[in-house]
């Protein structure tokens, strides 16, 4: 089965995967509302049911889901402090399409190579040692062809220990469960808070996962939020009655 045909039954969408891609590209459904985890689970269940792994289909699925993840993370993360301008949903969708087309280009080039190989391997070449009289490649005829310094340089390359890897882009794992717990605790204590007051100091990943957790709570009706103007403060409020749940 092609990944595109994977049948999905999500909170905000039911239908085949390729249709989901279509409505996302048309921006009819916000990617923010779609649980990509559920799609992965659906696919894994399908794999389990099918009992065998179709590598092409799995590759296609991974490519699509990875593109969606990247797109979604762009949509969710607060705009970068510096660096390239944030992509709008339309540009992001275009980039997704461009990524898929780039892959397609090499997939088709691969098919071409496969045809070349198919005709090329019908020709068998000779593989035989040289006759003895030619094999005595006379040592005497050999003259210097290489510079010994090349060996010294290569040795120096091999002695070089790589600099400490730059780990600034690796962030600690942030657990969604943990963020949910923190939010629930906060909302029990205060009933309402300003998102930036509490989380502006966190790194981007923590902020994003916290936002995810908030989305999850919104979906479950545990919390709501309000943002009066673009980039303005986000006020988060519990949906529970004062008596608690």
């Amino acid at each position: 089965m092609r990944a595109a045909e994977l049948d999905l039954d999500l909170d905000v969408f039911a239908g085949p995967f390729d249709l989901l891609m279509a409505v996302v590209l048309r921006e009819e459904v916000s990617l923010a509302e779609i649980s990509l985890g559920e799609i992965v689970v659906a696919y894994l269940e399908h794999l389990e049911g099918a009992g065998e792994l179709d590598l092409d289909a799995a590759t296609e699925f991974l490519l699509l889901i990875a593109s969606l993840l990247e797109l979604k993370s762009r949509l969710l993360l607060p705009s970068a402090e510096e660096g390239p301008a944030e992509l709008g949903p339309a540009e992001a969708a275009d980039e997704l399409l461009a990524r898929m087309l780039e892959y397609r280009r090499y997939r088709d080039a691969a098919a071409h190579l496969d045809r070349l190989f198919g005709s090329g391997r019908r020709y068998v070449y000779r593989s035989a040692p040289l006759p003895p009289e030619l094999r005595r490649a006379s040592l005497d005829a050999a003259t210097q062809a290489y510079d010994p310094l090349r060996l010294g340089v290569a040795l120096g390359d091999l002695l070089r220990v790589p600099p400490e890897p730059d780990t600034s882009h690796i962030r600690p794992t942030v657990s969604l469960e943990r963020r949910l717990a923190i939010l629930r605790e906060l909302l029990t204590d205060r009933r309402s808070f300003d998102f930036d007051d509490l989380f502006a100091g966190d790194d981007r990943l923590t902020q994003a996962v916290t936002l995810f957790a908030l989305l999850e709570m919104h979906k479950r009706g545990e919390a709501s939020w309000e943002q009066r103007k673009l980039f303005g403060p986000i006020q988060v409020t519990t949906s529970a009655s004062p008596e608690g749940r």
Partner: protein
Amino acid sequence: MTTELQRTVEALLFLAPEPVSVTELAEACEVTEAEVDRAVDALEAVLRDGERGLVLRHVAGGYALAADPVAEDAARRLLSRPRTPPLTQAQAETLAIVSYLQPVSRPEIARIRGVSSESAVATLGERGLIEESGRSRFGAVVYRTTPLFEKLFGISGLDELPDPSRFDPTPEDERELRERLLRAGEQRSS
């Protein structure tokens, strides 16, 4: 009349383990490259008339003799040489990326394919189709195709590979792709 040069060229290509360039043939025969060109053309014409068991192949920047495919099955029986296994999809895609973008690193291949391509790269290396060609400035090994790749794929050089833009979908196809998705969406919502 077959010239002595033509006979010598045939004998050299018979002996040489790898494709031999016109320059190397000219040096070995102590003649000009133009003379070699003529001798090669004549040899090719003789072999091409279908009366012979050998064919002349212009591969990997040189010339090589190969058995005529008519003898393929008998040759495999005689030499008990198994047929080269076909490329898997992962290998073919990886090879396509290396052949067009070389030198190219494994992370770059993985980025384009969307999946880690470690085992495809390793297998292509073992099959002698790609090789390391140095390291990128970040220390990652970069890869390129080998002369064996050109020999087995029957091309005389990388410039014989078609322009990759040839594989791009036409604007119509691209539009069609979008529209097909959009139509599916409309059917769904109606």
